[in-house]
C-alpha cells in the first residue's frame, strides 16, 4: 500500500499532520497542534495544501486517513 494525497480535495487544515504518530515522534511539537519545524516529517501543509515529504517513513497505520475530513489523504 502507498500513501496518496489529492491536493484538490485538501483544505489545508493540517489534521493529518498533527494526527500522524510518526510525525509527532520526529517533530514532537506537532502533537500539540503546532506546525512542524522540520521537513523530515512524512507530510506537511505547504502553500495551503498537504504535501508528502518522506513517504518511506510511513508505516501505513491509517491514522491520517481516519482523521482527514475531506478524503484528501489515504492509503491505497
Amino acid at each position, binding site marked *: *500500500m502507498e500513501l496518496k494525497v489529492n491536493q484538490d480535495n485538501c483544505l489545508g487544515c493540517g489534521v493529518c499532520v498533527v494526527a500522524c504518530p510518526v510525525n*509527532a515522534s520526529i517533530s514532537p511539537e506537532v502533537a500539540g497542534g503546532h506546525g512542524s519545524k522540520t521537513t523530515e516529517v512524512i507530510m506537511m501543509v505547504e502553500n495551503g495544501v498537504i504535501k508528502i515529504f518522506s513517504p518511506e517513513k510511513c508505516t501505513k*497505520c491509517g491514522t491520517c486517513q481516519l482523521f482527514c475530513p475531506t478524503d484528501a489523504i489515504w492509503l491505497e
Partner: protein
Amino acid sequence: MVSNTKKVKAKDFDIVRSAEEKRELSFKDDICIGCGICEKICPVEAIELGDIGAIIRTGADEPKIKIDEDKCVLCGMCNVGCPVNALKLKIDDEPISDMDIYPHYISSAEIDDDTCVYCKSCETACPREAITIARDLPERSKLVTGEIEIDKEKCINCGICEEMCPADAIDMEHKLPTSDDPTVASDINVDKDKCVYCLICKKVCPVDAIKAVCRSCSYGVYDLKPEDAETKGSSFIDEEACVNCGWCQEICPVDAAKVEKPFKGELSIDTDKCQACGACVDICPCNVLSFPRPTKPGEIAEKISKDERYCIYCGACENVCPVDAIDVKRTEIKHTPTKSKSWEKKLESLKTKT
C-alpha cells in the same frame, strides 16, 4: 507432475497441489487477526503480512496476508503457527489439525452450563462475538401469588387502573358512547399471567371496584416453587471466531468459563514513545488496550491502558505500532509434542529471544 494452483476468492485463497496426495491450503481473511506469526514461521518466506493497520482501520479492500504459490511448499507450518486457525492445510481432504502427527497449540475455551447463570456478561464482553447465550426466563406468573377481581357493576370505566398498572395487566375496551349504549367502555379485564399483585390498581381506583390481595409475603412460600424461579439456558462458543483471549473467564461472576491460552508472555508499552494514535487499540483482537478517560475535570489521563489478563501475546499490536512503542514477549509456547526436530525448532522460534 506436481504443480501448485492458487484460487483466489475475494480476499481468501486456496492453494492446491494435485499429485499422488492432494494438499490444499485455505486462508480465511475474516478470521485472520493480522498477527504475522505465519510470516515469521513460514520456512520458505512465501507469506507476506499486509499493511494491517491500514487494512483493518480504513477497511481497505486488501487481504491481510499475501502468499506466493510458487514459493509455498504446502508444508502446513503456517496452519500450526496460526493462533486462530485462519490458515488450514488439508491432506487428501483431512485437516492436519485433526492429525496427531502434527503439533497443535494447547488452547481451549469452555463454558460449563451447570455452573452458568446465563447472565450474558461473556456474550457482551467477547471481543470476537464468538459467544451466544440462549436463555429461557421463568414465567412471571409463577413467581407471585394472589387474587384480583374487578367489580364490573361498580366500575365507572375511568381507565386509571389501566394507565397506572406497571405490569400492563389491565385491558379496558374503550368505545364511544352511543344513544343505545351510553358507556365509554364495553369491558375491562385483568390478565392474571401478567398481574404481579402490587395492588396499585386497588389503591388508585376512585370507586373501590377492585378487590385484590397479594399472598407472596404471607404464606406465599407454600404456593411458590423455587425451581419455577430458575433461568434455564445453554451456551455456545463459535470455535472458529474464538481466540481464547480470556474475557469470558475474567468477566464471569460464577467462574463458569475456563480458558487456556497457547502462549504466555509479557506486553510492555513505552508511554514516552507512544503518540496515542490508537492503531494498537483498533488492531488488538482481544480488547486488551484502551484509552483511559479522565475521571475529573482537568485530569490528564494515561496515554494508553492495558490489561494483560486478556492478552494472547499474538504480537499484532507490536507489528502495527508506527513508533515502536510496544514490545510483546512470548516466553512459553504450549503445544502437543512433535517428533520432528525442525518443527519443534520452528515453534520454539516464536518465543522471544532473551
